[in-house]
């Protein structure tokens, strides 16, 4: 049996088929299989609380991958993710609660409706770039949340709408573990899709648009088509994440989808690593768990200094901000880059030069 720890080195591919293989070596397949098994058996040994947190991480990861397709791959900044999550959430809320549709039908529909709305707000992207586009997507954030909170007859206004958990046959996915499986499977499909997307013609066009859009246009890439397409694909996943979140928390309300959520998603993509699928997942985990970690640090400190709880709580925000700033200064490549560095270190060890 070949040594599992011998890594691929150099490029010995002799056919296009080999070049397109998703898993190059056997050790890679085994590595992913082990990860898969760990993920699928997690609820057996992790506590209910952690399963719940990881479900939230998985949902954020789906949304972050969606945003990364738009921002990391196509180079279009969006500050409207929060609202697009809302579109997904409200679509499934209206379809399941008002019209009594099954979750399994309303989930893809939520993605499609969000994709359409996202595409609509992507139309200005041909004329607007960078900061200008960012502000245009901010408009999407404002307009969508405005509509959601004012269109009382459909959305229930600020009181929101109540949803139920999905049902398979007679089994309701009420437990944390069952919902975890649902989200983790959808996350895997998302990862598989987006990894493959980048290897296709469309994905390459996205990268070309990101790197130099004028050059891309000269090469014959239809800028408008691909820019709007990026919005559509990205919003589809954000919509799916929104729908999953809505059924997880079993409620939608306009306050859940404010600008802060949009910024958090942007932070996930930035901290995780722009243009990296792994980075989106790591970023989502980092941003979702950082407040939890900080809260436990505050709890630990308060155990010794009970009178300072208020001060520490206020400090939490500060540390959160500081962590993000330090990250961007010292590792602009994000968590994905750190991971790559660690791997490289072990790969070339002990001859690091």
């Amino acid at each position, binding site marked *: *049996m070949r040594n599992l720890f011998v890594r691929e080195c150099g490029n010995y591919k002799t056919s296009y088929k080999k070049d397109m293989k998703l898993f190059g070596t056997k050790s890679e397949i*085994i590595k992913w*299989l082990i990860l898969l*098994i760990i993920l699928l*058996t997690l*609820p*057996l*040994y992790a*506590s*209910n*609380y952690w399963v*719940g*947190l990881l479900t*939230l991480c998985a949902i954020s990861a789906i949304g972050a991958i969606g945003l990364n397709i738009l921002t990391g791959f196509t180079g279009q900044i969006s500050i409207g993710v929060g609202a697009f999550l809302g579109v997904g959430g409200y679509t499934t809320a209206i379809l399941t609660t008002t019209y009594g549709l099954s979750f399994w039908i309303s989930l893809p529909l939520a993605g499609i409706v969000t994709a359409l709305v996202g595409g609509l707000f992507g139309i200005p992207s041909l004329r607007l770039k960078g900061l200008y586009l960012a502000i245009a997507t901010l408009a999407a954030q404002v307009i969508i949340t405005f509509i959601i*909170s004012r269109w009382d007859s459909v959305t229930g*206004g*600020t*009181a*929101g709408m*109540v*949803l139920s*958990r999905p049902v398979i046959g007679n089994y309701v996915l*009420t437990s*944390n573990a069952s919902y975890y499986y649902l989200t983790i499977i959808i996350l895997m499909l998302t990862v598989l899709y987006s990894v493959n997307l980048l290897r296709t013609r469309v994905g390459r066009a996205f990268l070309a648009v990101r790197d130099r859009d004028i050059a891309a246009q000269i090469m014959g890439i239809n800028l408008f088509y691909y820019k709007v397409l990026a919005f559509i694909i990205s919003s589809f996943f954000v919509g799916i994440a929104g729908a999953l979140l809505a059924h997880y*928390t*079993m*409620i939608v*309300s*306009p*306050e*859940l989808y404010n600008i*802060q*959520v949009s910024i958090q998603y942007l932070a996930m993509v930035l901290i995780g690593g722009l243009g990296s699928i792994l980075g989106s997942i790591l970023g989502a985990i980092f941003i979702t768990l950082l*407040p*939890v970690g900080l*809260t436990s640090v505050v*709890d630990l400190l308060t155990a010794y200094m009970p009178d300072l*709880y*208020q001060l520490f*709580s*206020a400090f*939490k*925000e500060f540390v959160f901000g500081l962590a993000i700033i330090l990250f961007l200064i010292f590792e602009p490549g994000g968590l994905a880059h750190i991971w790559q560095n660690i791997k490289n270190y072990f790969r070339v060890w002990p001859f690091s030069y």
Partner: protein
Amino acid sequence: MLKRKSLLGFLLGVLLLILSACGGQDSASPSTSSDSSGSDGKRTVVVGGLYDITGGTGDVGTPYAEGEKAYFEYLEMKGGVEGLNLKLIGKDYAYQIPEAQKLYQELRDKEKAVAILGWGTGDTEALRQQVASDQLPFISASYSENLKNIKESPYNFLTAASYSDQGRAILKWIVENHEGDTPPTLALLYNDTAFGRSPIEDIKAYAKEVGVEVVDEQVIDVQATEAQSQLLNMEKKNPDYAIIQQTWGATSTILRDAKTLGIDTQFIGLNWAAGEGIIDIVGADVAEGYMGILSHAFPYEDMPGMAEIKEYLDAKGKTIDDINQKFVQGWVAAKIMVEAIKIAAEKYPDGDLTGPQIREGLESIQNLDLGGLAANVSFAPDNHAGTEKTRLGIVKNGKWEPITDYFSHND
């Protein structure tokens, strides 16, 4: 080759078995420790708390949280509740709904809380479906009328008159006390959150019923530091009265800017827009004549219920000047929850107390005397709104003075 594959399969199988074995232990452990009575033979009851200390409504959230914590400390000081080891574990969620959801999960799964003392309207409404499926009774500092709906919020309880009832009470007072030949006109000032908009439709409907004309509505941010443009818009309609649904910060902004612009409308705040904080922020001369809903008593009011608070403060080396009305409000919320836990503990002397048992306890509370700290509350299986009664007060010589006793618009 075949051998290798089967070896791999075998290894994976072993791994799975080990993992599932670990899982088995985990799922088995709660059953062995289900009776969590400690070495002292007491049953442990954990109440979870969600506080806003650093967020948008932290101005009133901080004293409220302190009041809740103080009541549990007071109980401990007095020797606790017979046979129970009561604990309050609370966390700051900074008025962020996603954060509230994470903390709620932590309280439920990690701390094993069986009841929750919550805070804001947005997060309480966002959690109501979750607490219903987890069967955890939830007393919130939000008095949103939506939470009265037993079908949608079967585990939520309101411990004071709902925002809508507060608004109705103000309208009743306006109708009874309005001077002048023309019918009274009213403006509504609120923020664009679930909290701010909660009573608006109900107030408008009731105003129509009692013949008060709503002439204007202005949206003012919950953290606004400037509201002149909205107030100028409002002034064009020249309403006799304006109802404010905000917390201290935005209310102070409104009062200060109204003074600057010389607007003579009578401002009346709902309960979170009333309290000492307003006078502290804007000063006694600006606040003079401002009216508000006094859902709870002030520390300086001579009420029988205040004796316990004074006892607690004495023990801590503090005086009533260190606390305010929102502290009393938190104290009362905690007291009502503990009352329900006591009832449940008496009724179910064996095993750990559960959420449904505490809900039963809450539902059997009839006319609970709060010693004047708040209107007496009653719950029933088909009614989770504790009371419809509230008081009105006015700022006179830099101090809040009640001008009515607890009353309801239905009286």
